């Protein structure tokens, strides 16, 4: 392909970003058209119906919900805003607290995740790491020893981790050269994604104990930290793909001009990977916003998040308060949709090809 070809191809977004791309011209046979559109509309119905049902349930009176199915407002039942009034006006303080917690937690954990994760992904995409197998094994064993001494023998955790770190540094200096086998970047990547295999129920018990011992339970900070770590593998995996797709020429020429590693990363690489950044941010934010189990374990009253409020509508002898729960679900969706609309503008702009030819 010559440079002329490159300039003629319109720059296109990559990855999840392509969701919002403009249509292209083409033709289809009438029969195919009918089949395709009927399939599309069937699926649209399948996707939208539960949402529609949640929406109309939120304006039903309890009696309308419990007396059997009612489909159309004003025809089958009279819409009533009682559930909305309860949650948004009368109990606004109780709704606002988890809402604010959710916003803060999702915001900061997403930012921390993207910051650390994209740097790690960039490093993995550009630098060849060769950590020695033996060093890693030693590190893991020392961590294990530290945890055992804290958990079983009741050693103070600060003392244990500090001495483990000191021993590790000493041993790594002394023995580091002797290990032969090393692992590569793809091993690190796979190991990271494998971190997500462990069910949250398992990781959350030790994490609970950990935060208990440092007295950070029921704080926003604890949940932010946990979400950041839990979502990091996703960021690293997705951003690794995006960074690998960026041609190296740009960075090499910047390096010749005397730019430092960090300048290159912030001034050149990040703007180019904007598409990937936006898509990954959206995904991570959705995960943090909707997470339930970690929040359930780590919060009691002060740091409650929205998914817990949803589940709380099931409590009590009256059964599930469907109408209130629907309201909560709806006000939970709104910020995500707004976020998606905001990020879409960045997503739909592919800047890569333009940058290469300029």
């Amino acid at each position, binding site marked *: 392909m010559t440079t002329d070809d490159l300039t003629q191809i319109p720059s296109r977004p990559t990855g999840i970003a392509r*969701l*919002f791309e403009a249509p292209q011209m083409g033709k289809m046979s009438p029969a195919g058209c009918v089949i395709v559109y009927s399939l599309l509309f069937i699926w649209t119905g399948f996707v939208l119906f539960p949402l529609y049902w949640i929406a109309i349930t939120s304006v039903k009176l309890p009696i309308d919900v419990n007396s*059997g199915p009612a489909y159309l407002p004003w025809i089958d039942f009279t819409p009533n805003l009682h559930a909305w009034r309860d949650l948004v006006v009368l109990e606004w303080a109780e709704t606002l607290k988890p809402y604010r917690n959710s916003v803060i937690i999702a915001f900061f954990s997403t930012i921390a995740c993207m910051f650390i994760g994209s740097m790690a992904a960039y490093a993995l995409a550009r630098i060849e790491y060769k950590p020695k197998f033996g060093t890693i094994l030693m590190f893991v064993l020392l961590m294990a020893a530290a*945890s055992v001494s804290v958990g*079983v023998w009741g050693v103070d955790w600060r003392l244990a981790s500090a001495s483990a770190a000191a021993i590790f540094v000493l041993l790594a200096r002394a023995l580091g050269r002797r290990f032969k086998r090393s692992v590569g970047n793809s091993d690190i990547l796979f190991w990271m994604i494998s971190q997500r295999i462990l*069910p949250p129920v*398992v990781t959350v018990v030790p994490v609970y104990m950990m935060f208990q011992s440092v007295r950070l339970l029921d704080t926003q900070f604890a949940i932010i930290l946990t979400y950041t770590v839990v979502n990091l593998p996703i960021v690293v995996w997705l951003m690794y793909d995006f960074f690998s797709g960026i041609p190296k020429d740009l960075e090499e020429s910047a390096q010749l001009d005397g730019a430092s590693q960090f300048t290159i990363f912030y001034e050149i690489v990040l703007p180019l990977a904007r598409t990937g950044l936006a898509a990954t941010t959206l995904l991570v934010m959705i995960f943090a916003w909707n997470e339930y189990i970690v929040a359930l374990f780590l919060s009691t009253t002060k740091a409650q998040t929205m998914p817990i409020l949803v589940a709380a509508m099931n409590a009590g002898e009256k059964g599930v308060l469907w109408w209130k729960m629907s309201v909560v679900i709806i006000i939970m969706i709104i910020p995500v949709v707004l976020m998606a609309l905001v990020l879409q503008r960045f997503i739909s702009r592919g800047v890569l090809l333009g940058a290469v030819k300029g």
Partner: protein
Amino acid sequence: MPAVIMILIFSIFPLIASLILSLSRVRLRAGGYDVRFVGLRNFEKQLFGSEQFHFLGTFTSISLLGWVFIIAMGALLIRWFSVYLRGPVVVIGLIGRIITASMILALSVLLAATLLSGNQFGTLGVTLFYVLVGSAIQFLIGLGLAIICAQPIWGRTFFRVVFFLPMMITPIGIGYAFRMMADTTKGPFSPVWQFFGLRDFAWAADAWTARSFIVIGDSWQWIPFIFVVLLAALENVPRDMIEAGHVDGANGWQIFKEITWPSIAPVAATVMLIRAIEAFKLVDLPNIMTAGGPGISTESMTLQAFFAWRAPDLAQSAAVSYLLLFIAVVLCVSFFNLVILKRRAAIA
């Protein structure tokens, strides 16, 4: 590099801590907990002891159908090995394949001894059902939708945004929404149930209908993810290659098989890996829709670990999770090495 170390610290700590938990007996006391080392007894309880029915299922003798299935799987694996041994053999590759094969064989013996012999299977079987059947259905529908939406059709931005919506809802909300949907007396489809004379039909009382409802809810939530990623992959397929195929007179299926599929296969394999990993951890939907019932027939392993944690039996919870981790890692690593790396190599 600091970032890598940070992940290392934060993800290894829970791993080690829960390994310790799974090897010990934990007793809560006022203001803390006692941890006593008991070796492999927790795992023994799950695999052979009083929790065996819960985790693996109930056993009687293996039926004829079960034996046929075991022998068929064994033959397939032997064939696979003989093909591999004819080519260049690497020690690590051989060990990896032996581990994969023994895991598959063990799981098929389990399947033969429980389901195919008319016995109930435990949480392990249920989890595998969610992972295999759920992922397969979601992949086919997601791929179909992505192919349709990759066509130049009118209003596709609209369809794309709508199809992405379910991703944005919290899984808890989806669980409750589908409990409303599936209600046979008050739900929106109750006239349909009544029309078929199923007014008193309780889907939650039958193991297989309950499981299928959970798979439907899970699919509603996860098809958008597969759809979006596959759509992006489909649009990366070079257009001139497809046009060249048209010029050469290939039909739609041939073009898909020879051009489109090979170039989206690596992404498809990766997205299936991510989806399978998440499916191993399915917990919200069965917890809300059926609470694992009827009996234990919709209880996934994660849910079993969750119930054990709530009991509170931290040690059993950690043991179940470690078993899940072991099975999931073996299956996922096999999939990664044997499918994804091969696809990537085929592209490069």
